[in-house]
């Protein structure tokens, strides 16, 4: 029998949970920063036309949305995706980070959770976000490339919906993490499987559907969106009282 305290982790979704961007805004950035103004304009119009399609697909199935969505990257050069990632962060991502996000991450870290980001976003866009927050681990999607050019496919396993739950389970068993004492944060119903995997799911800036669901399940609901930095009043109960989760000590 191990006398060591089991490892616990806090699993975070990104888009909508820690910041207000989504995959489409990220892609739209790359589209409007193509090599020439003309190409940028053309790409951007393409995005605009596609938005209703993306929106509809997203309502129907997140997984299908992902498969369809990443096809838009086909033909983009990896150098450019990496080369513009910092600008993407400054232009769109940084300002969309919720006021309370950092405080929450600091709190979970302080209470001994390993901070794990589990997101459908792409690796190169995560890099500056990671520099900003400093996660312990990142599980995200990777585009497939051939000769440095995106093929429009994503490397398996696709990080989305039920896939996220399975990935978290695998990760936990590999790393010896006790899921029952771990927690998960997300904003949308598509992440319910991911939330359910851990002992402490938290609806974070939830959509109306997730809020309803969370209230029925008795999950805590928190909002990071409009909270001033430094204040710590709105954390979920189990974080406010470390003894509540600290079962071994």
């Amino acid at each position, binding site marked *: 029998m191990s006398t060591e305290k089991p490892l616990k982790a806090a699993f975070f979704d990104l888009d909508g949970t820690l910041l207000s961007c989504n995959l489409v805004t990220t892609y739209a950035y790359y589209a409007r*920063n193509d*090599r*020439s*103004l003309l190409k*940028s304009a053309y790409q951007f119009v393409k995005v605009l036309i596609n938005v209703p399609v993306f929106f509809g697909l997203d309502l129907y199935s997140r997984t299908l949305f992902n498969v369809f969505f990443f096809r838009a990257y086909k033909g983009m*050069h*990896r*150098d*450019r995706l*990496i*080369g*513009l*990632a*910092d*600008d993407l962060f*400054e*232009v769109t991502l940084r300002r969309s980070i919720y006021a309370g996000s950092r405080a929450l991450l600091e709190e979970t870290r302080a209470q001994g959770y390993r901070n794990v980001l589990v997101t459908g976003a792409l690796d190169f866009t995560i*890099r500056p976000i990671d520099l900003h927050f400093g996660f312990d681990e990142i599980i995200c999607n*990777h585009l*497939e*490339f*051939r*000769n*440095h*050019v995106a093929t429009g496919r994503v*490397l*398996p*396993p696709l990080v989305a919906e039920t*896939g996220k739950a*399975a*990935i978290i*389970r*695998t*990760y936990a*068993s*590999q790393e010896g993490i006790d899921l029952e004492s771990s927690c998960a944060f997300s904003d949308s119903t598509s992440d319910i499987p991911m939330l359910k995997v851990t002992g402490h799911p938290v609806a974070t800036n939830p959509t109306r559907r997730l809020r309803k669901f969370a209230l029925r399940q008795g999950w805590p609901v928190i909002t990071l969106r409009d909270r001033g930095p430094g204040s710590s009043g709105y954390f979920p109960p189990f974080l406010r009282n470390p003894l509540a989760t600290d079962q071994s000590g």
Partner: protein
Amino acid sequence: MIELTSWRYDPVRGEYGDADTQPEPPAGDISAVDQFRSKTVLLLGGTGFVGKVLLSMVLDRFPELKHLVVQVRRRRNMSGEERFRSEILGSPPLRSVVDRIGVDGILDRTSVVEGDLSFPMCGLGDETLARLKAEVDVVINSAGLVEFDPPLGESMITNVYGIRNLIDLVHALDARLVHVSTCYVAGKKSGRIPEDTPIVGYYPNRSGPDDMSFDVGRELAWCEEFIRETADKIAERDGGMERADHWGWMNTYTYTKSMGEQLIAATPGLRYAIVRPAIVESSMEFPFPGWNEGMTTSAPLVLMGGEGVKAWPVRKDGPLEIIPVDLIAAGILVVTAARLADRSRPVYHLATASENPVMLPRLVGFLGTNARYKHKHKKDGNRLANMWKAYIETEVVSVGKLDASRKRVRWGLDFLQAAFSFLKVILGARIMNPYLKSLRITRRQIRQQEQTLDKFLPFMIHNSFIFETGNIRQAYGMLTREDHQRLAWKPEEIDWADYWVNVHTKGIEKWIRPMFAREVRAADHG
């Protein structure tokens, strides 16, 4: 349950592969650890860019190192020992080592001797020589004057006469020699450059091994007479470049460096190995990502790209032979271990393009994305100009097109000059002088950019090099697995996009831009 595969980007093929299937490189029976445990190293040029990283790496990776002697030149009122403490131990690349083992810990394993390559026996006294003779097993020389076009005499002092003194010293110490030269001694060539071309009698335009037109002795005599007859420094500078060009070298630096190599190779009985780095750039990981202090790297180009230069005359199908400084340091240590075991080859290229080339148009693309980023977030300067520089992409151009556009810019500036001068007559000097002044500054900036670019043209468009690196690969394969844990020769693992964007460019902005800005300010006041 889903299999969590660890994907790993293969930068050579440009696609992801499974990280678990990476084969380990072959290993052999030479133990660098044992070599350094039992042998003493004398390092020359420890204050340089490569020298400091090399020193830091030896101390960091080989705690069992027997002893390291560092030769430092005295400078005005600063002794070698003082310079060692302030300029070496106090410098950023040594910081982590100093923090870990402390200054005293380092001084336990190192000692400093004052000396100077330009004096006989490198300026070491008899007593020091006697002491070092009993100790030193190998001399690593990373000292050299890296300026491309100094007056010929200045270049010769370190790169040629210095080598003569160095050879005497190595003989007197009965030691082995690892000499750091440069890949570009090959001169104006294109294509794959082998490592086994005979060194003595080499010149780039040589027709074959029977062509004996170049002889270091005769050449030195020519240089000495030329320098004696030339009083003017500028003429001496131009003369050096012309002489280099006459034989087929691209500049005075590579010409004198080649002569230094030839002196070494022509010395009978000398146990030597020549290490030839390509263009040395920011560190990838060690001592920390992005360390850089070299101005003779691609730094001027990166800075120019950051300023918004759009037209780049480069080869569409050619690589730029750049290599991170930590790979150079590791490579020199690998060669040193092989030399100590007396199983080295004469020449080692330390370069990347033969295994993992980064093509020039990709670099032009990186300069473009960096300019976009910088000018979008630039707070000062003309807003319209910033927008232009942010949204107009860099492009690869031919030399002809570049010349044409330069001419157009010059006409435009001439026109403005004439217009401003005319207005000065009408409106008065008080109103027009500020405009004329800013025009002068613009002209100077453009001229400087043109000069910098011209200096790099031999590497970007006139020639296209791929330096063969079979020898260092072979030497690395002779080291043990334990050594491989400490020293990595893995150019095939450099992810150029990540390296250039996230490491190299940021390193240059952090370490070189301030240095460069100081120089420009000094020039403005001078």
